[in-house]
């Protein structure tokens, strides 16, 4: 460091530090202004990061190597009727797909409905009732907690048995072992043969408010005509995108789709949900940045005002320093350091308040706030930068004072 730079920085820092303590009221006011900006920004970012983290967890619960072939896409773009007119899949097609796609580790048809599930006078509504085969449990990453899973035998002889999700088990059987009990699904009796480990929420939907019954039992109980989808898991280590590409050709062949015609089915991946989710939070981020920008602008103008007052109050001091040999640059550095130091303190307080807010939000709402260390550093650094920027004009004014006039100032 050259001598001149050392003088500028050391003395600037000393004066800035000194003046923070000497002008407490001013420091507090500036700090509050910038702190509010940082706090707002951080609270919003914290909540978004929390959303992201929980969404990632939810997506992971679907399994990263799963695909679903269906009449309907998960994310419907355009006309729903267009998809409705597609032909339904058939069970032989499921077997043909399995035979032609060597990269498939497990495959199962899946059909679902919303139903009321009751036991002993207790009733749960809007329960997801799925008709699946034995293989589905591996595809959907469902762990059996107690009892057993569904078997091919259950399916073959259309046994009225059910494996129930954790929310259903807790809701209908508080303190009771559900195994062997008879529940009613939309009035039809099913015997509970197993319970499932909790998977958690997916996009605010409780995945554990679900009941699994054998695929064929589902149809024989709740009627035919309902279209089913085909869930599958690809081999570990298999590139899911390549698998998807190959699958398109296989499914077209199996369904006899004429060459040149558009696909008459959809291949769904959890990642597609992620894209929709990102579009959604992208907009949120935009709003957050806008709000943050405006609050920082307000805070920055506050700093500028207070620095201008500070320059006026210290006109004589500036004159004295100039007379004793301070160069313009030294004065500029002094005021810039002061402005950014005040702002950084504000940023730090704002960070604490912002994190606190995010924490409180995550405690009293289902949103889970999650702030990363980088965000905190960013908050303080950004505040200091705002102080620096808005300090430029006051600092330049201080440096450009005529020393003779400044010494005469009362």
């Amino acid at each position, binding site marked *: 460091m050259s*001598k*001149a730079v*050392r*003088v500028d920085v050391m*003395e600037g820092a000393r004066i800035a530090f*000194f003046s923070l303590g*000497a002008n407490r009221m001013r420091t507090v006011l500036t700090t509050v202004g910038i702190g509010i900006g940082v706090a707002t920004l951080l609270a919003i970012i914290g909540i978004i990061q929390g959303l992201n983290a929980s969404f990632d967890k939810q997506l992971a619960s679907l399994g990263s190597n799963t695909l679903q072939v269906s009449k309907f896409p998960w994310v419907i773009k355009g006309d729903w009727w267009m998809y409705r007119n597609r032909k339904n899949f058939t069970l032989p097609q499921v077997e043909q797909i399995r035979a032609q796609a060597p990269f498939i580790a497990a495959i199962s048809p899946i059909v679902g409905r919303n139903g009321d599930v009751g036991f002993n006078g207790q009733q749960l509504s809007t329960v997801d009732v799925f008709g699946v085969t034995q293989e589905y449990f591996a595809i959907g990453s469902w762990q059996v907690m107690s009892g057993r899973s569904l078997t091919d035998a259950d399916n073959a002889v259309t046994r009225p048995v059910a494996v129930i999700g954790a929310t259903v088990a807790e809701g209908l059987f508080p303190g009771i072992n559900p195994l062997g009990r008879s529940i009613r699904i939309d009035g039809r009796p099913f015997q509970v043969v197993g319970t499932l480990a909790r998977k958690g929420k997916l996009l605010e939907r409780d995945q554990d408010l679900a009941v699994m019954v054998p695929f064929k039992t589902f149809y024989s109980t709740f009627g035919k005509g309902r279209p089913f989808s085909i869930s599958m898991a690809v081999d570990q280590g298999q590139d899911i995108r390549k698998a998807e590409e190959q699958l398109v050709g296989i499914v077209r062949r199996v369904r006899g789709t004429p060459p040149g015609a558009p696909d008459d089915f959809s291949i769904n991946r959890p990642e597609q949900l992620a894209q929709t989710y990102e579009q959604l939070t992208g907009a949120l981020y935009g709003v957050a940045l806008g709000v943050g920008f405006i609050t920082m602008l307000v805070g920055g103008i506050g700093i500028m005002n207070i620095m201008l007052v500070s320059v006026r109050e210290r006109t*004589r*001091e500036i*004159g*004295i*320093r*100039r*007379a*004793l*040999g*301070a*160069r*313009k*640059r*030294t004065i500029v550095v002094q005021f810039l350091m002061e402005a950014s130091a005040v702002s950084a303190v504000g940023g730090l307080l704002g960070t604490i308040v912002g994190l606190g807010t995010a924490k409180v939000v995550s405690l009293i709402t289902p949103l889970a706030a999650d702030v990363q260390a980088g965000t905190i550093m960013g908050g303080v650094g950004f505040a200091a930068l705002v102080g620096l920027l808005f300090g430029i004009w006051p600092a330049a004014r201080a440096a450009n004072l005529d*020393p*003779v006039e400044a*010494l005469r100032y009362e």
Partner: protein
Amino acid sequence: MSQVNGAGSPRLIDVQDVTRVFHVGGEEVRALRGVSFGISRGEWVAIIGQSGSGKSTLMNVLGCLDTPSSGRYMLNNKDVSHMTDDELAVVRNEEIGFIFQTFQLLPKETALSNVELPLVYRGMRAKERRERARAALAKVHLEHRMHHRPNELSGGQRQRVAIARALVAEPSMLLADEPTGNLDSATGEEIVRLFEELHRAGNTLVLVTHEPKLAARCPRAIRLSDGEIVADGPGRQVALGDLHAPPAQAAGGS
């Protein structure tokens, strides 16, 4: 023009035909109308004149706080009339020690910190700075007050802190603008005694005053009137019009 010291030593100050014109609302105020003089090392010169005669303006130019509108000002063999702002700041730091009527101390800093300030801008390390500031305060007999703030000191003590600050960086000259103006006569006398001490120690002193009695105690005085030099000679003679004054040098010691 008088030159007190021997012709051999180069002049510390050489002012040639310096003017300073202010523009106030379209009107020209000619505060200095072409002044020329020299000051050698070790001299003690009073600048006197009525209020508005241009004393402070001259003082600001000599102190490199202001630059002449025309003319040439050589300080320590450097032409400072056309220097940039930053160059002037360096010259002020190295060549000039200011003493103001209103002391101009930083109110929130201790006497010691105030005295250190010129050395801070010279880039001196803290330890050496503190030692020198202490020594300078000792020269003005204020070692025992160095940790006091200005508002804990009397007027005379404050001015002595200011003098220590002016001395600390060992400048080529001390410039004092009405240094006793805000002090009662007894305290003012203390300060004048201190100046006499500094003069005997070999410092170059320029003292702006409107008090003829004070100017009379200086070996040399320059009288300004309406922006022009109207007299330049032994202090007693110029200040009191006493043509039979004893040689100025003798007046200092008593």
